[in-house]
């Protein structure tokens, strides 16, 4: 049974109970925002913003608050959204993130989408660690109809990347997408390995446009922010993919990440099928939180 009291319902219920925008009202609002994983800091920012706007615009009625919050959140997300499909260069997309967030699945979906748009794609299987990671990616590449460069489990991920870059150069492939093993951001050696991968691409394929996307599971709590910080330090992340938004979590952690690190969200994952990937749209995303 899909019983889920959504934000709008919750806000409406407090709007109903509090006619005036006062401390009690704001405290309840604070609770609601925190339960969507936005974190204490972002929540406080929103509350401050509401206070200021209430004064500025002379708002007295609690029912006007919803639009103020929406507006604030949409702004936060849109501020960082730039276009990136303008260049004619070859492109490399490196996909990174902690364990089990949906990297490999997202790669299958992205590869399919790029292939459908008429471009050529190679996928590099640089997760040489996890059991059957290569087989899983192979299946996705089969579904997407794209080529894969892989080596056996236990081999050096750097050399897989090296081979894939050379293949992409030789075949003049439009887009090379690199899968990497899931790794927790607090594991030094694994992060060093990732840094090596990043450097190999940078060094061997400098002429290509490199995008590094961090995959974040929408159910992630406050740890997501630390993930984003540490992955950014290792290999400059310039996009986020927020997965599993078909669940009940609304991905509130994305707000502090975008807000603090100024990294835009590129795609959202909404299921396990090949076409369950959507371009990120700030208005839709914020509306979904409130619907």
């Amino acid at each position, binding site marked *: 049974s899909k019983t889920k009291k959504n934000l709008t319902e919750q806000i409406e219920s407090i709007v109903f109970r509090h006619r005036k925008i006062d401390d009690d009202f704001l405290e309840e609002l604070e609770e609601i925002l925190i339960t969507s994983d936005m974190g204490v800091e972002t929540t406080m920012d929103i509350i401050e913003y509401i206070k200021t706007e209430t004064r500025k615009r002379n708002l007295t009625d609690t029912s006007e608050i919803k639009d103020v919050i929406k507006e604030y959140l949409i702004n936060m997300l849109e501020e960082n959204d730039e276009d990136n499909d303008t260049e004619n260069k070859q492109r490399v997309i490196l996909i990174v993130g902690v364990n*089990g967030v949906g990297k490999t699945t997202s790669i299958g979906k992205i590869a399919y989408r790029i292939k459908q748009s008429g471009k050529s794609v190679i996928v590099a299987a640089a997760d040489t660690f996890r059991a059957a990671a290569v087989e899983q990616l192979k299946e996705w590449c089969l579904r997407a109809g794209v080529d894969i460069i892989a080596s056996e489990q236990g081999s050096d991920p750097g050399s897989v990347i090296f081979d894939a870059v050379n293949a992409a150069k030789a075949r003049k492939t439009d887009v090379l997408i690199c899968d990497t093993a899931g790794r927790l951001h*607090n594991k030094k050696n694994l992060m060093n390995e990732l840094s090596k991968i990043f450097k190999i691409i940078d060094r061997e394929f400098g002429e290509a446009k490199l995008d590094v996307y961090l995959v974040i599971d929408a159910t992630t709590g406050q740890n*997501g922010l630390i993930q984003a910080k540490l992955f950014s330090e290792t290999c400059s992340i310039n996009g986020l993919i927020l997965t599993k938004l078909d669940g009940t979590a609304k991905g509130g952690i994305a707000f502090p990440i975008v807000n603090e690190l100024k990294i835009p969200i590129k795609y959202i994952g909404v299921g396990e099928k090949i076409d369950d990937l959507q371009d990120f749209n700030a208005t839709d995303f914020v509306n979904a939180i409130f619907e």
Partner: protein
Amino acid sequence: MFENLSDKLQNALQKLKGKGKLTEKDIDLAMKEVKMSLLEADVNFKVVKTFINSVKERSLGSEVMESLTPGQQVVKIVHEELVKIMGQGESKLKINSNDITYFMMCGLQGAGKTTATGKLARKLKKDGKRPLLVACDIYRPAAIKQLQVVGASVDVPVFEMGDKTNPVTIAKEAMKHAMKHGHDIVIIDTAGRLHIDDSLMEELVEIKQTVKPDEILLLLDAMTGQDAVKVAETFNQYLDITGVILTKVDGDARGGAALSIRNVVDKPIKFLSVGEKMDQLETFHPDRMASRILGMGDVLSIIEKA
């Protein structure tokens, strides 16, 4: 896990420590900080609220107000309430002595089911058991192959019927297979699913009815946010789970999910999964965990200085 939470809690409480007399305002301020540090650790909002309320109520009672060292008394109360939330005593796996024991693993996508299936098998094999793993994930690409690789790495056989047979049938056939081949432990790996996916949740219910597992273990990622409780509640409603395995505890998540689960579904956390390798599974001790959160040594020393 928990280090950060521990620091923050101690900071919040430290301020009360030296005070000879406490006003309601002192307590309010400290509790506000405690509340924020729990929320930043992803402790479920409702759990935080109940916790803060009971600490406040007790702190304003005569036991504290009339004490010569009210600050220390509050710290003590926080500690006691935390231990209460975590539950006490380790919770052992139920293992039949004369019959085959069945375990079923369930949880959201990517929580760590397949990995933990291998870890449990390894552990039980070391205890002299003859486990069999069952591949009931027919959906995820290469899920069966993954379980086979995991099984081979701990030298435990895997029963599979490909990805065209219904998981309920696979489970049923696995029972016969286990009987015939003298296995005493059967661990069923299931596909990851959303708790709101009715048809896939019903599939688990059917497997449960067919196998009647001795343990139904929910795998829960330690990095999960406020949604953790909803997930656990729903899996529990469908399946009446017997316990939880908290995964990816080797990360630096503050572990609020762990604090919330016991309190809301009243099912014990049985194991912590602390890495990707097969020997990285630990028995969970709630009391030790509470101590770790509070940096017990320090807290006790604060109390002792009373």
